[in-house]
Structures are given as C-alpha cells and as structure tokens.
C-alpha cells in the first residue's frame, strides 16, 4: 500500500525554503527514529529467535556449554519418543473437546442474550469474568474445588450421595477436568464475539424472513446462522490455536501428571528445555508444534475462502 505522503508537498510559504528532497530525507530520518525502538525489540526478540530456534533444533544444547551440531537427530528422536506421542495425543484430545464445547455453548448463550432480556448485562458479566482471570488463578481455584479431600466439588457430590472423585489426581479424569476448567473460562470469549457478530445481522433480513412466514427456527437456520459462519470459522481457528498452546493451567494444576495423563505439547517443550536442559530437543518439538499451528491456520483460511458463506455486509471484521 504505497501511500503518497501529502504533507511533503504542502504548499506552505513558510516551509518552501527546504527543497522537497531534503524534506523527504529529513522525514525519513524522523520516521526511522519513530520506528526503531519497536523494530529493535521485535526483530531482536521475535525474528532472530525464530531463526535461532531453527538452528537450535539441529543442535544438542544444554543452554550452558557450547552446543554441538547433530543434524536431524532431534527430529528422529522425537518421532520415536513415546512421551512426545502421548503429549500430542493429550493435546489433540484436549483441543477436540474444548474447541467445540466452548463455541457451541458460547453460541447458545449469545443467542439467548441477544434477545435483550432482563439482566442481560449481569449474565454477560458473569459469563465473561472467568475469562479475564489468569490461568494461574483459575488453576489454583480449581485445585481447591477439585481437591479430593477438602474440595467443594466432592463435598457437593457427597451431599447428593455420590462417592468421592479424584479429578486432577485421577489419570482418567485429569484431562477432562482441565477441559471443564477451560470451558468455564473460555466460553465468555465466544459469547462476546458472537454477541458482537449478532449486532451485525441486518434487522431487515430477519424481518423480511418473518414476514415471509419463517418461524424462529427457520430464521435462525437460514438467516442468523449463515451470517455467523465467518465468525464461527474465526472462533474455531482462534480457540484451536489457543488450545494447542495450553500450558499455564496444566503447570498450575497437574504438572503434566498423573502418569503423564495431562502432559501437553507445550508442557513437554518446557520440560525438555528448562527442566531436563535438552534445549535443542525442546526447540525441535517447538518447531513441530509451530508447523502444526501454521497448517491449522492455513487450512482454516482456505476453508473460509472456499466456503462461500459471506455476510451480506462486512461483519465486524
């Protein structure tokens, strides 16, 4: 987007002294002064590290002593590592549960809230508050609620005659408990995104459909939902990317356990790099994750383009 800089040709008597070329050069210097702090931080701590990580992934490094070039060894080792395979399985299961649950629940709640009932503001606040809490706070809170001995969850279950559950301490329940906490905190985001998109559904369309005899369900199916399709695609992409990167909550609640039942990919990377001091191996795992994220993003972009469901008017985007 080459933008002509109109200010440089402003015909102003007081400023004609400087030749246009000198003005441009001075402008360029000012511009560089403006952007250079951002450029230093972003190039130094984003662009360089991306390449550095790639180098590291071909090396054996403990972050202290000089590293040694090992070629593709890290990647070979990764493909044979049962713990990595388990981390991939756990991450995919977590994602496959969390993404649809949070989006569908978010859609239902947004459709309900969009009817402008009494207490709509209160409901929206309640659904959204968990989202602004840190994953640490959520994790600490639910470690308590799900505590097998002193937790409120078992206390409630006890009162209605159900035996104590292990939750985070039970290998078969730990990942599901994580999904539950994430749905609790992540649904609010889907609600506000859907609510914003619902504001963009043209009133004339729904009214025209009503006048043509469409019932609630038909208006929903033929007008509202198609209009929400681009936002839904965005939410699937966004929630998937976040789910594949889950870490903080796992670190606080289960530390990857019990018996590796909640070791997710990022937890595996962190453990390799900063606990076992096999940074090259961790970097290789990070690259595998990054490529998976990229594929997810590209795939969904294509789906969005190919789907052909476009809002009548530019939706919120």
């Amino acid at each position, binding site marked *: 987007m080459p933008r002509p800089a109109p200010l440089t040709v402003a015909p102003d008597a007081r400023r004609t002294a400087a030749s246009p070329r000198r003005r441009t050069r001075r402008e360029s210097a000012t511009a560089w002064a403006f952007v250079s702090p951002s450029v230093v931080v972003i190039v130094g701590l984003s662009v360089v590290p991306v390449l550095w990580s790639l180098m590291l992934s071909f090396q054996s490094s403990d972050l202290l002593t000089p590293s040694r070039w090992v070629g593709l060894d890290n990647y070979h080792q990764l493909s044979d590592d049962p713990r990595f395979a388990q981390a991939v399985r756990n991450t995919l299961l977590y994602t496959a549960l969390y993404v649809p649950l949070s989006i569908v629940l978010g859609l239902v709640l947004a459709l309900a809230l969009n009817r402008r009932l009494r207490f709509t503001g209160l409901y929206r606040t309640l659904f959204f508050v*968990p989202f602004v809490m840190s994953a640490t706070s959520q994790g600490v809170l639910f470690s308590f609620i799900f505590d097998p001995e002193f937790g409120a969850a078992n206390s409630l279950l006890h009162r209605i005659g159900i035996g104590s559950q292990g939750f985070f301490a039970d290998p078969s329940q730990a990942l599901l408990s994580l999904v539950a906490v994430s749905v609790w905190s992540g649904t609010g985001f889907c609600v506000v995104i859907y609510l914003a998109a619902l504001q963009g559904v043209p009133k004339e369309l729904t009214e025209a459909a009503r006048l043509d005899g469409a019932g609630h369900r038909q208006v929903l199916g033929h007008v509202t939902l198609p209009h929400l399709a681009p936002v839904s695609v*965005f939410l699937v992409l966004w929630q998937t990317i976040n789910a594949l990167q889950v870490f903080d909550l796992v670190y606080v609640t289960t530390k990857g356990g019990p018996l590796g039942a909640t070791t997710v990919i990022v937890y595996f990377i962190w453990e390799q790099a900063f606990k076992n001091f096999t940074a090259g191996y961790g970097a290789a795992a990070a690259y595998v994750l990054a490529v998976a994220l990229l594929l997810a993003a590209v795939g969904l972009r294509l789906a969005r383009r190919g789907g052909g469901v476009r809002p009548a008017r530019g939706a919120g985007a």
Partner: protein
Amino acid sequence: MTLLSAARRREAGRPGHAHKLSGSVTARRRGRPRLPFSPWHLVLAPLALLFAVPLVWLVLSSLMSNAEINRFPPALWPSGIDTGGYRFVTGNAMFPRWFANSLIVSGAAVVSNLVLGTLGGYAFARMRFGGSRLLMGLMLATMVVPFQLTMIPTFLVMKNLGLIDTLGALIVPSLVTPFSVFLLRQFFLGLPRELEEAAWMDGCNRMGVLSRIVLPLSRPALATVAVLTFLSTWNDLSWPLIAIHHEPQYTLQLGLTTFQGQHNVQWSAVMAGNVITVLPVLVAFLAAQKTFIRSITSSGLKG
C-alpha cells in the same frame, strides 16, 4: 430507544406470525401457562449460577478458617468471617513484594506499549521511509509466531544481557508488541488526514501533530492497547516461570502457584492470595467493562 422500537416491531410482527403458523402451535401457545419471565431465563439462570459458583467459592473460602475447610465434608458456607487467611498472606514476607513486582512489570509494559506503539504506528500509517513495507510485513509475520518458538532463544538473549532473575527480563520482551503497533497504525489510517494537514500548515512539527491532533482522537485505540497489554502481562505465567528463579523477583502469578505448593493445606490463605491476585484485574474490568469487552472483541475480530 432502539430497544423500544425493536419491541414495538416485534409486537407488530406477532399477529401475522401467528396467523401464518399452523393452528396447533398457536393453540399450544395459548394453552401453556404464561411464565412471568421469558423462558430463556430457565436456560440462562442455571448456567450463570454454574459460572458464578466457583467465583463465590473463591471469596467464601478465603474468609473461612482452615479448620472449617479441613474437616470432612468441608463446610460450604462460612459460619463466621475469618480474616486469618488475609492476615497470613499480607504478613508473609514475599507476597507484598510479588504484588509490587507485578505492578511494576505491567505498568512499565503498558506505558511503553502506548509510547512505542504510537510512534511506530504513526510512522507506518503516515510517513514514507525506505524499508517501511518490508518492516510492516515483518511485523505482521511475527504476530503469528507462537511464544514457544521464541522462548528458548529469548531466554538466551536475556541471559547474555545479564537480565535473568531481574524484572528487566520480564519488561524488555514486552516493551512493545507488534500487535500494539499494528492496532494503532490501523486506527491512525482511519483518522481524517485534513486535520493533521491543517495543523502541519499552521507550523506544527510531527511531534506536535501527533500529540495535539492525533492522540486526543485516538483514546479508544489507546485504551485497547492499555487493556490488552495489562491483561497479558499481569496474567502471564510462562515467561516469568522461565526467566525468574529467585523468589524476591517473582511476579504475583508465579508467587501464587509457588505459595500454593508450599502451603497446600492452608487453603484459606491460598484463596486469600488468589483473591488478591485477581482483584486488580477484576476491579479494572468492572470499572471499564465496555472498554474491556470492546478491546477483546476487536483483538479477536482482526483475524
């Protein structure tokens, strides 16, 4: 006003609506005893309760005594208010310090993102300089780079700068994000050029135009940058976990999870600490709910 007119329109639509539907449906409608409230509340209220209960428990348990929590089955409602948990936390040598550390790091990040984001965003939006398109492309590309890919080298950079185990290691990487630059650039592009040109002709220099014309018009975008930067730095755990190993330099999030590990039978104190950790974000959110929701929605819809 829109509410009223929408309601009126809905009323107007109703007769025709009922007429066109099959008779049985209308009959069923008429036969059902009318609720004094919309049936949607039957779905919303229980779900809202389910969302609220953990938060209520957070507050209640922070006000219970440990004895009450540690019996079986644990009490669900405090018999009286016990501030022992809060006294334990505030009397702890480290907790106030972690709170201050978090404030310093988040405050520095917010200020610096506003300043550097404005300067960078304005240059990209309004000034012509060599390499600007390449740099902008680079910035956009780094927005999609996941943190895990950069964390190991960033740790090494911070180690070489001698910043590991200092708050500097937390502040430097969050001085400015490509997102802040990009968001402000997009906002500046949408501002009318005429105002800036007029100020320019009146003899303002770039800085004058920026501070007198552009910034006062950019409050919503600046608020968005501030809110999102504060949320992400205050709530972050992964980077402090990597960059800080000495307790006095912990942030609140890192401190809270460590605290939980050390005092895991003193749930009342842990929950009191958790309330203190959540409180700044919660207060800010409730005070500026519209801004928060607009900011988070706009961060979402940019994709």
